[in-house]
């Protein structure tokens, strides 16, 4: 049975009170990840929103070891810890590299590619809030088409987000998954799966951000769910090359009842500059990705 909020382990690794923004989805992500890891993990974190959540010296909001890293260095630092643990014969700990979209897909891409190609024994998690939120919402390569950021202030971003899981999949690693704080049970189960595999594991997590996406702080979970319900973010996992839709995305594929992307976008003021033509391009891209995902799921079922 899939894990849900009622049957999650009770042990908490996130302490009450942290410095993340109100409504931040990263706390939901970390809470479920740390439970799935039983706290038996070392987190490596570059400059990012999660750094803020973890707290400033000499206080901490999380009860797991956290090692801060330079911005591009997450995957390498995690590789070093993994090598060290291997040399020491310790196999009870998961080394988690946890970076944002910039720290993964932009400045962290080379290090991630290197670690993945070496199949370093690292679980790399990208929590993707779709811009450089920690520095004030500048565009990243994972910012969606049409979104206003502080470096795309008037017209919105002119390019689509790059397909991060596809780039990582090209490295032929044993496990890739996507997850959403809107479906924490699915996220929890995937972290449990990743924990049981050695080598490079990668998870791309959609992380709604109230100040950056510009929606009310109480709507974080609803926003995460809408991303999935519209197909803008697809839940899947790829185990040893086999692609399978999971959770809500699997249910949507079975019932063929996706919502239009407009429903997701109209709640976010960052898309306030979006014209109908750009919205149509976004919908077209979402439809194309969705069709490919469903087709691949059925072909590899």
């Amino acid at each position, binding site marked *: 049975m899939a894990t849900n909020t009622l049957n999650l382990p009770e042990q908490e690794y996130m302490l009450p009170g942290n410095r993340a923004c109100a409504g931040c989805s990263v706390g939901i992500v970390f809470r479920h990840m740390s439970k799935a890891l039983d706290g038996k993990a070392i987190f490596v974190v570059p400059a990012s929103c999660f750094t803020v959540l973890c707290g400033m010296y000499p206080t901490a909001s999380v009860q797991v070891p956290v090692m801060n890293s330079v911005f591009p*260095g997450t995957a390498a630092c995690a590789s070093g810890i993994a090598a060290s643990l291997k040399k020491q014969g310790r196999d009870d700990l998961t080394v988690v590299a946890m970076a944002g979209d910039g720290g993964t897909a932009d400045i962290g891409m*080379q290090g991630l590619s290197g670690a993945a190609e070496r199949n370093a024994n690292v679980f790399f998690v990208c929590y993707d809030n779709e811009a450089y939120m920690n520095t004030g919402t500048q565009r990243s390569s994972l910012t969606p088409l049409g979104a206003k950021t502080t470096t795309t202030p008037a017209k919105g971003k002119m390019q689509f987000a790059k397909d991060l899981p596809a780039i990582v999949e090209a490295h032929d690693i044993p496990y890739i998954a996507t997850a959403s704080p809107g479906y924490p049970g699915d996220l929890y189960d995937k972290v449990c799966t990743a924990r049981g595999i050695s080598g490079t594991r990668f998870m791309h997590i959609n992380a709604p951000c109230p100040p950056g996406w510009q929606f009310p702080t109480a709507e974080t979970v609803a926003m995460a769910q809408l991303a999935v319900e519209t197909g803008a973010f697809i839940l899947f996992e790829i185990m040893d090359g086999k692609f399978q839709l999971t959770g809500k995305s699997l249910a949507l594929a079975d019932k063929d009842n996706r919502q239009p992307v407009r429903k997701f976008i109209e709640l976010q003021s960052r898309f306030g500059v979006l014209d109908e033509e750009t919205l149509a391009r976004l919908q077209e891209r979402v439809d194309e990705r969705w069709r490919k995902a469903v087709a691949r799921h059925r072909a590899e079922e």
Partner: protein
Amino acid sequence: MTVDTQSVSVITGNRAAAEAARLARVDVVAAYPITPQSPVVETLSKYIETGVLDAEFITVESEHSAMGVCIGAATSGSRVFTASSANGLAYMCEQLSWAAGSRLPIVMGCANRAMSAPWSVLNDQQDAMSQRDQGWIQLYCRNNQEILDTFLQGFRIAEQVKLPVMVCYDGFILSHTVMPVDIPEQEQVDAYLPPYSVHTILDPEEPRNVNPVTLANPRLNGDGVLCHGYMEFRYLMEQAHKEALDMIVVADEEFEACFGRRWGGLLWSYQLEDAEVVLLAAGSLAGEATISADMLRSEGIRAGVLGLRAYRPFPAAAVADALKEAGLVVVFDKSLSYGYDGPIRRDVQAALFEHRVMPEVHGYIAGLGGRDIKARELVDAARDSITWAEQGKGPKPTDWINLQL
């Protein structure tokens, strides 16, 4: 100095560096190729693949990641090693600062090479000098035996004062030139260098947030204890450098007790006792200067050499003490702080002024981008300086040796 000829091999400086890493029983090696450093890690990868050395070798995709792996591995309990040169060292820049700020006893080799542009794979010391303010200890070697021995001392120093150590040796001149080197037995090295004892804690049993955002001012922890602010940590790092001034000497003395040879600690000298004219440099150039001193002495000029072994921490008091009888100090720099002067010359001059030791100090820029420097050219420079000083011409502009404009 005693040498057991049974243990002497004729090897390159790079091989000497690799042998030192093997003998130090490093746990993790991470490196990326760059000329002239590459043979160091080629040798180590062979040792690790064939089981000669029980360690993890991480073939990273960049120097930035090489230092990243070293930082992760050193924090989690491994003795680590890497090496680089020039652009590779520059590419590590922010990681060098991170390693020092983390107080990690990482030891790396720098086979000194000129910085581009334009491209040059040949020797000068611009690469290491450009990174001098990152918080690393920098030690310079004059020959291949000193390279091997300095790496072993480097681990001893680094692990005592909790600062990273960069062992600098001139690219090609030492890295690719064979010399007889006494390679010690493992038991000897084990007796000198105790196993790595990690001071950082990265364990779920005692969860800590290592190097989080740290404010300017001290701040209370959850138990109400006032903990350091950023500036206190920086002060402690500087104190560690002060401590290193002693530890570099101690490590050298202990080395002599175990291996029967030492390298001078912070400085070494040649014919310095009665020297009126002192030639001063770091690395292989200082070795070359001993020949120049002999040549000057054969002309009746009382010349000697002061070799700088430690550049950071800078042994200001020791330099001033060593030069207190000198009338003229001629400093040769293989790098430049552009817009000012050779960095060693200026540091020497500042140290002398601070200690009210007032010989005339002249500077020469030499050997940039692999330009050959002969002992007789150092002699010519010294003669020019002697003439200038005798004529009482005052401050002498820095000259460039063998410049052909």
